[in-house]
């Protein structure tokens, strides 16, 4: 029972269908289910919202267009016209994280993005991709990213290691920021939910707190998805333009 009521119990991976292909565990878990639901929800949300191809959009289509414009503007502002090829990726990334974050707020559901491995796969793939992109576009000149122009040469021994470490820490900060935010918020909700039950009638106080916290968590769910997308744009911009 103690484990059942642990605030971390909600993050447990539960295998729904055990699957093993060539020694690789590809079991369909509650996490996989939420990913599939997220992908399906995003697709339905976008496709049904635009099914009328309305010249004057209704509410639903307006929201779809808003999401599109938000990402399009972010890509344009941060990368410029050369960001066009990465738009579909950034859009998919933003929508996936947003839906995973928000769907995870539904009670008894599962938050895909609260697992560091999920966010790290994204961050690591982006890190590798951006680094490859930088070398493809600039060759060895890509190393000048670690030494901004206009800096006195004698600062190089100090500056280059700092820049290099900060570059290497990008995938870590990117993935930890999202996963930690999700995990902390959900844990806190769960803890206070336990207080509501334990305090009986006095539980109204933590209940009110939960309502407010829930609103904050919804904001964070959106904000963290957006931050992830913006930082990805910035990294791509660095690789394309070297110096901003």
């Amino acid at each position, binding site marked *: 029972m103690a484990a059942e009521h642990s605030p971390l119990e909600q993050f447990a*991976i539960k*295998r729904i269908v055990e699957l093993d292909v060539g020694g690789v565990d590809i079991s369909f878990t509650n*996490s*996989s289910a939420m*990913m599939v639901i997220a992908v399906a929800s*995003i697709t339905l949300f976008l496709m049904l919202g635009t099914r009328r191809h309305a010249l004057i959009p209704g509410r639903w289509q307006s929201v779809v267009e808003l999401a599109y414009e938000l990402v399009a503007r972010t890509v344009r502002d941060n990368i410029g016209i050369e960001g066009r090829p990465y738009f*579909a990726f950034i859009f*998919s990334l933003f929508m996936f994280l947003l839906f995973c974050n928000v769907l995870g707020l539904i009670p008894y559901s599962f938050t895909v993005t*609260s697992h560091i*491995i999920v966010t790290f796969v994204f961050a690591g793939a982006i890190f590798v991709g951006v680094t490859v992109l930088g070398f493809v576009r600039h060759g060895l000149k890509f190393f000048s990213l670690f030494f901004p122009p206009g800096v006195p040469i004698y600062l190089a021994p100090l500056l280059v290691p700092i820049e290099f470490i900060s570059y290497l820490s990008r995938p870590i900060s990117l993935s930890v920021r999202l996963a930690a935010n999700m995990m902390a918020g959900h844990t806190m909700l769960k803890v206070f939910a336990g207080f509501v039950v334990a305090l009986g009638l006095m539980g109204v106080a933590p209940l009110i707190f939960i309502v407010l916290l829930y609103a904050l968590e919804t904001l964070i769910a959106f904000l963290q998805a957006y931050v992830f997308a913006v930082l990805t744009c910035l990294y791509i911009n660095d690789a394309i333009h070297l110096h901003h």
Partner: protein
Amino acid sequence: MPQMEFADYVPQIVWLVVAFATLYFLMSQLALPRITDILETRQRRLDHDLELTEKLRDEATAALAEYESAVAEARGKSELILAEARESIHSETRQRLDDLNARLEGEIAESEARIRNIMTQAMGELAVAASDAARAATERLIGFEVSEERARDAIDTVRKS
């Protein structure tokens, strides 16, 4: 801590790759082209409408200019007509006045001639009356009958002196 269960990492990674690849495919092939199409269609429509509005505005401006020039022309013409009418009235009035003056002058001259005639006639009658009176007086006074011619000559002489 469930996040540190390394045994759960592989299925999560596998499903994440599958799910995200599917999503990327659906977005890049289906959803995004559709939204792009909607937005571009709208933008084209807006541009077209804007263009049309501009054209109509230009036409309206041109029509207004035409109308104003027409009004100005009409005003110029009306002023011309007015001036002409004023001129013609003026000249007719002067003509009539001149005619009247001429007629009056003629009548005055005629009247003066008539008066002169009447006076001459009166003078002539006066001379006859005077000669008659002179003859009668001479006959009564000196018993001498004076002929009519002599009496008139005498009176003429007296009058002329």
